[in-house]
């Protein structure tokens, strides 16, 4: 399923003294089956943008196309549930939304809201719990008796059980330790590859964006600053650093080394292996 934003603007609290413009002139498109990363500072508008992806917010100007539906500014929208089923959002600290007596009931909650029968929902719960790498024994436990990492996974399973076509992830690894972070990110990537789920990752981490995404969208001051493939985005790292944004470790290192050595590699290195090879080449060329 494809999601397109056409000239989208969003203002909070219109017609009050607190009115403020959070998004403007946003034109982006996320194709079926791709992995897109949305990057920006806190306050760059990326959280507001995220809420347009399943019609939690309606634009105050412009249009959002979600699959075959159109959400248009100023129009009353009915029956938004099918959209919410197709576009699942894993919010930041998703474990905060757990509420039911057992893990199983909590995971079944989403699917059952979308009209899935209890038996089918239980089936989905078993599948989802396996997808997030937990054992089925956990299904009968109370979600509040689990460890932090397990709660996070259960909450994610609750979204996966809705069988969304598009999965939106808002800083899914915040607060986890390095191992937890890697495991969760790899799990989403695996799902994306294996099941062809379109994935949209909202993150601060340039590392993750460079590692997993096909396309990167950089948000700055409420609008799209730059979009493209990781290679395109990081081919001009100085520009990103000027905005106060990070670049991946490899790119930052490459930049420092290029400056000191007075050479230029022909492309930005996005992983450590590639960087080592390029450095090796540069060393061999030596001072000639």
């Amino acid at each position: 399923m494809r999601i397109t934003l056409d000239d989208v603007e969003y203002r909070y609290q219109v017609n009050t003294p607190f009115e403020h413009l959070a998004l403007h002139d946003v034109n982006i498109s996320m194709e079926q089956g791709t992995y897109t990363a949305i990057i920006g500072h806190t306050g760059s508008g990326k959280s507001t943008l995220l809420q347009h992806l399943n019609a939690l917010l309606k634009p105050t100007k412009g249009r959002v196309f979600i699959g075959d539906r159109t959400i248009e500014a100023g129009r009353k929208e009915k029956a938004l549930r099918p959209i919410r089923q197709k576009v699942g959002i894993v919010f930041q600290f998703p474990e905060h939304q757990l509420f039911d007596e057992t893990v199983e009931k909590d995971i079944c909650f989403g699917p059952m809201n979308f009209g899935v029968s209890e038996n089918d929902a239980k089936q989905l719960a078993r599948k989802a719990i396996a997808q997030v790498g937990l054992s089925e024994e956990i299904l009968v436990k109370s979600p509040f008796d689990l460890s932090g990492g397990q709660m996070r996974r259960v909450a994610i399973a609750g979204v996966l059980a809705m069988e969304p076509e598009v999965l939106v992830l808002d800083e899914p690894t915040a607060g986890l330790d390095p191992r937890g972070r890697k495991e969760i990110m790899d799990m989403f990537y695996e799902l994306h590859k294996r099941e062809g789920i379109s994935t949209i990752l909202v993150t601060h981490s340039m590392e993750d964006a460079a590692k997993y995404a096909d396309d990167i969208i950089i948000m700055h001051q409420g609008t799209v600053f730059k979009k493209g493939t990781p290679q395109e985005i990081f081919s001009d790292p100085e520009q990103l650093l000027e905005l106060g944004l990070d670049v991946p470790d490899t790119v930052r290192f490459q930049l420092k080394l290029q400056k000191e050595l007075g050479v230029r590699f022909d492309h930005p290195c996005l992983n450590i292996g590639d960087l080592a090879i390029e450095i090796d080449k540069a060393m061999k060329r030596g001072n000639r």
Partner: protein
Amino acid sequence: MRKKLVSLSNIIFKYEGQSRNALDDVSFDIHQGEWLAIVGHNGSGKSTLAKLLNGLQFANSGTITINDQRLTEESVWDVRRKIGMVFQNPDNQFVGTTVQDDVAFGLENAGVSQQVMVERVHGALNKVKMNAFLNQEPHHLSGGQKQRVAIAGVIALQPDIIILDEATSMLDPRGREEVLETVRELKQENEITVISITHDLEEAAKADRMIVMNQGRLYREGTPQDIFELEEELIALGLDIPFSVKLTKELQKNGVHVVDGHLTEEELVKDLCELHSMM
């Protein structure tokens, strides 16, 4: 060798209703003026350690001595004046309705006179560069700003030690840098001892000394150089290693003869430049 400020010996601690010891025979010293990073995966016991140091929990056995004073239920209030803590969640430690009220909270508890309080509140906020936000309410501040206010609340009490209990883990990269920079400056100006409990290995790489915790036990103690030599072992513990160490290994694999032990990118760049000029 610097003066011993804190010493823990044979600490054992178990949470009620749990079968495993959260801390299992842990002993180490903290020296005056050092930056000590305590690392470990979630549940390794590192945060329990912080709670024990502040007398928020008491060990089942073993002793903690701070400045030659043994930490007991009687001495705990004295100890808390010497050790300030900054916690993980910026929201859940902001007590005051405004920035200045929050900084004053600890001073009020200590019974400091109003005039001195005003001075100290302003002084502390100056140091963390939050003096422009005196009357701001917490929900208008970013996470990094809230943590800086928390730090101001701690230094207003002029403690000997600051404990950062995963104080940057809920912040964005910019907030994280803001907070660490603030602590670095403070440490430089005031000879303060910093204990940072973290799983940010880049931050730990800049510490004077590191302690690695694993399953309630002290796994290794040493300088960042020593610790990051462990590489694979660290990764097996659920931790990570700094970028420059990873790249060094990768370069060596490719036959570039850089030496081990570069903890910062600058050092590695320098090494590479020297190599390059010799080619």
